[in-house]
């Protein structure tokens, strides 16, 4: 990794932190207000790609674990990593990696549709696939019960996936950061 990549990693860790500072947005018709933090997960993956995106979220989690209150609502410290919703947190680096992987896979024909696929699979499905079983085991509750509790967040996640995809396509055109390996590597 070059220094530039390290700077990009730090940048998206910081962007995720700043998104946590935004006040939660109450949306009519949805009981739970949306926080913007998982938007950081989606943007990291779809702008930086798999490796740097995953590392950005890993860096963010390290900074939170070290005791800085950077999660939305001013939460932080090790407590959030041993709480009932910690599975969602652990899923973030993996989610960013998956989003980045899918983005790189479709990079040459990247458009809004592919961006949506990447963000929905990585930014919504992966997060719930890890978060729900964790809560279920942690709280000794059935998977169905754990899943029911998180249903109210789905509409917000769909909105965030939409925003992340629009932004990702615009950044793809204006300032592409992901570099694909050449198809035929140059000799030597």
């Amino acid at each position: 990794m070059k220094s530039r990549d390290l700077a990009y990693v730090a940048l998206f860790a910081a962007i995720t932190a700043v998104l946590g500072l935004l006040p939660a947005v109450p949306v009519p018709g949805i009981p739970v207000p949306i926080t913007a933090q998982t938007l950081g997960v989606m943007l990291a993956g779809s702008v930086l790609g798999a490796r740097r995106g995953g590392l950005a979220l890993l860096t963010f989690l390290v900074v939170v674990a070290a005791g800085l209150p950077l999660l939305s609502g001013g939460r932080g410290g090790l407590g959030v990593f041993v709480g009932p919703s910690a599975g969602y947190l652990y899923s973030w680096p993996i989610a960013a990696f998956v989003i980045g992987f899918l983005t790189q896979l479709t990079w040459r024909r990247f458009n809004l549709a592919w961006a949506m696929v990447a963000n929905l699979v990585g930014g919504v499905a992966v997060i719930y696939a890890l978060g729900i079983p964790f809560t279920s085991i942690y709280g000794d509750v059935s998977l169905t019960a754990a899943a029911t509790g998180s249903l109210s967040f789905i509409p917000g996640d769909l909105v965030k996936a939409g925003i992340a995809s629009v932004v990702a396509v615009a950044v793809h055109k204006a300032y592409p950061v992901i570099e694909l390996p050449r198809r035929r590597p140059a000799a030597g």
Partner: protein
Amino acid sequence: MTAALYVPGAGPVHRAPAGLKLGLLAALAVGLFVADRLEVVAGALAGVLLIGLGVARLPGRALLAQVRPVWPWLLALLAFHLVFTGWHTGTVVVLRLLALVTAAAVVTATTRVTALVAVVEWLARPLAVFGVRPARIGLVIAMTLRFIPLIAERAQRIREAQAARGADGFRFQALVPLLIQVLRLAHTLGEALDARGADAPAPSPRRAGASAP
């Protein structure tokens, strides 16, 4: 803006090595899930409170502030178990949650951010086999902390520019110019680091010699 959750102190808990505290926290987390009996989790919670309030002399407020975010979870889990499984399982689950979150709060409140980052660097040492240089973790973290106020400031500037053109409130279209601005900035920072030799594959012999005792 980002006040750490550390509470200054000089007791034995504060002085204990950060790695030891993290290791004990991890052991407690595993232990409480393996031995999920009521007397074990209740004893663990009592022990954690004794260490946090008695030995480390942390203010109750500091611990409560970190436990507060899990209250909704606590109530929801208790309600679920009272309805579906009975009070015994519910009590075990809730006490385990309280014990773990409080223990984590004690570690966070008694350990400096720098000490925890040093543990992360130490843990990352075996990754050197894969070409990861642990010393650079500190660099990335330092850059992250510097970027946070910087991004907030740039976002504010874009919002003001849009307001001057008659747009009301923050619009998500503002994310695109913001991202491009900060990506350029990160790119420049990376180049500056390289120019100062941050990308050197290993310390040069001269440097290694100079730092040797």
